[in-house]
């Protein structure tokens, strides 16, 4: 009976995370981020024509996003004559899979405490009960390694899409994206090595718990505080990994049309786009988990706000409110990183392919190595 219950909860978590968080935010971002925000930046009005039946108001353009989805479904699906039908059809699924699977380890809040939660030494402790994993799909011990592994798989989607289309533009796009993603994975891993030394864990929820500790009793020990350089390195590497501007050479529309998805149409095109946006949202959630304290609200612990290492909370709060605040805090941080990515997208021109390689191998990689060495040295001396 317990097993069935457990499975049901996991299924529910998957549904909630994927269908209620990742997809809606991912696809809404196509609208609000890419279209409405860009229109604000560019002194335009943006999408405002489509209306929902019965509501005579543009609703900041949300009906457009529904209309777009509907349109995509009804579009003709074109497969180029000499394309490899099997791989051409499979490629969108291959690129969507890692984008969804990555969400398995993201903690949306701390484990649920079945007893009474309180704080000891800036850590939540559960009195008269146990922690129960309710807010991440899976509490993997090797969570961060899982993220690296799955995001490495996402290169296959682009490479296969580019190769199977039988178009030279697609091929160039596929090659570019493979080269770019493989190069930036090195930086991505190394920039996090320093933070692994400090936190001493790969479990993402455990990482967030550690970030609840305070330096000098007032400064939350978020990743961005202890590893500021790694934050920028990791953000840049992740943006390159998800092929967002200014690293969007694999789909650089001016030179190679649309890159590896030039020959895709209809819902296949939409799925590739969607997986890219979901991956973008994931970057936001991962960066906020590792560097911005994840679900942590500064000075908020199991039963309220603590200013100083006291026994009683300075501002006591009910446990349900703490959970709401934490999930909200995580979502806001994620959206902030997303917003940052879109601001960059609409501000910066695109790099050239070889410049991206130079940046990755000759600047970001040495920097992340230096960061790792210095962190290791400092940790050795201090601890």
């Amino acid at each position: 009976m317990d097993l069935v219950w457990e499975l049901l909860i996991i299924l529910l978590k998957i549904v909630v995370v994927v269908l209620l968080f990742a997809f809606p935010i991912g696809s809404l971002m196509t609208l609000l981020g890419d279209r409405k925000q860009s229109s604000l930046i560019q002194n335009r009005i943006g999408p405002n024509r489509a209306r929902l039946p019965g509501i005579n108001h543009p609703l900041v353009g949300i009906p457009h996003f529904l209309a777009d989805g509907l349109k995509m479904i009804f579009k003709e699906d074109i497969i180029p004559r000499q394309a490899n039908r099997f791989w051409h059809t499979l490629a969108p699924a291959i690129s969507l899979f890692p984008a969804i699977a990555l969400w398995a380890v993201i903690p949306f809040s701390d484990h649920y405490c079945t007893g009474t939660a309180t704080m000891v030494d800036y850590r939540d402790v559960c009195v008269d009960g146990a922690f129960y994993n309710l807010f991440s799909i899976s509490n993997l011990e090797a969570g961060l390694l899982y993220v690296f592994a799955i995001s490495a798989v996402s290169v296959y989607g682009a490479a296969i899409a580019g190769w199977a289309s039988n178009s030279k533009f697609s091929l160039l796009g596929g090659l570019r994206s493979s080269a770019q993603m493989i190069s930036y994975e090195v930086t991505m891993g190394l920039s996090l090595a320093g933070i692994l030394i400090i936190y001493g864990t790969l479990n993402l929820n455990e990482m967030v718990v550690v970030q609840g500790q305070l330096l000098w009793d007032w400064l939350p020990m978020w990743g961005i505080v202890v590893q500021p350089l790694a934050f920028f390195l990791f953000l840049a590497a992740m943006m390159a990994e998800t092929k967002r501007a200014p690293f969007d050479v694999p789909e650089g529309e001016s030179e190679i049309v649309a890159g590896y998805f030039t020959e895709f149409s209809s819902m296949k095109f939409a799925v590739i786009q969607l997986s890219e946006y979901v991956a973008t949202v994931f970057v936001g959630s991962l960066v906020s988990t590792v560097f911005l304290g994840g679900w942590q609200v500064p000075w908020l612990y199991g039963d309220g706000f603590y200013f100083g290492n006291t026994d009683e909370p300075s501002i006591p709060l009910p446990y349900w409110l703490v959970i709401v605040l934490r999930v909200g805090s995580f979502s806001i941080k994620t959206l902030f990183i997303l917003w940052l990515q879109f601001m960059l997208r609409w501000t910066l021109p695109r790099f050239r392919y070889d410049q991206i390689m130079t940046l990755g191998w000759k600047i970001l990689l040495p920097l992340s190595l230096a960061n790792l060495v210095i962190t290791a040295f400092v940790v050795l001396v201090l601890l």
Partner: protein
Amino acid sequence: MKDNLSPLSPIDFDHMSSEDVMVLNMGPSHPAMHGTVRMVLTLDGETVVKCDAEIGYLHRGFEKQCENATWTQVFPYTDRLNYVSPLLNNFGYALAVEKLLEIEVPDRCNYVRTILGEVSRLSDHFTCVGAGALELGAMSAFLYAIEARELLWDLVEEVTGARLTVTYARVGGLKDDLTEDFPERWAAVEPRLHSTIDRLDRMMTKNRVFMDRMQGTGVISPEDAINYGFTGPVLRSTGVAYDVRKDHPYFAYDRVDFDVPVGTTGDNFDRYLVRVEEMRQSIRIINQALRDLPDGPVSVDDPRIMLPEKEAVYNTIESMIAHFKIIFEGVQVPAGEVYSFTEAGNGELGFYIVSNGTGKPWKLRVRPPCLYLMGGIDRMVEGGMVADIIPTFDTINMIGGEIDR
């Protein structure tokens, strides 16, 4: 059998057999190949080994059309040459015919032509700089530039009645004078242009990514540029200070003070900088010309050349006859030939006209600045990367309507 039916094109097929290179057909339908040209690229990885530019997709027989139109009827055709700055083509052609007629237009006409010509040049440069940013992925900068262009086109529309197909010049003058409120309108637009130029400058000139993309790409030496017949901003970016407005002044350019910006390296970044500086100079020219704008008529007072007032046409027999003669037979231009050239947005726009003494040109040949620039594009992109074609193709600012005629 089917393959034999495919249209032949001047492509070097030797490269196709090699296994180390890939032939990539860029255009004529490609997002970056605006103005429909086709580039057959031979690529070694991402490096361009060979570039074969093929033009002619927008050919509409402009020069032949002109032989069947009266001198005045040619004006609408010239609108469609460089469709980003149609007024400059209008004025260039009018100047050529006036040289053939050996007439002098009134001073006010020269000033108005200078003013509106520079307005057109501004719109041309704004489009070029903005589109360059767009193609490098900075769409916001593009829209800022286009907003400024809209302001300019509003000015043009106010005076000429059209945004693009202006047909504003006439042989011996202009269709109309400037509107009375033009100076106020210009005064309202000018600060916004300045702020847009400054904003573009801030967004792009010091932008590391932009500099990396533009500097050292699409380089051409001054010798090569001259040998290929380059003119305009592309030639000036190499350090050769040749500007028709300065070296062979026409209209009122010898009576206004302006600088000719030159580059040093002849790369894309210098071409961009030259254009940005020319925009500032254009604003300077307009301000001076508006300040010195003399009073008087804008057209020559000659019934054989200019259409009479509509009122006179209906009420006097002489005017009616003059009207009839100009409309049906055209302005009678004495036999002879002339080559007249002006500085258009992209360089020297020349008109070589042969007249046989009738109301229609016997032969009209255009020297479009872009044609010569496109002739040398292979020099600028070969050895670079595929991505470098984009800024290079933009900064030479090829306009399809002008190159293919």
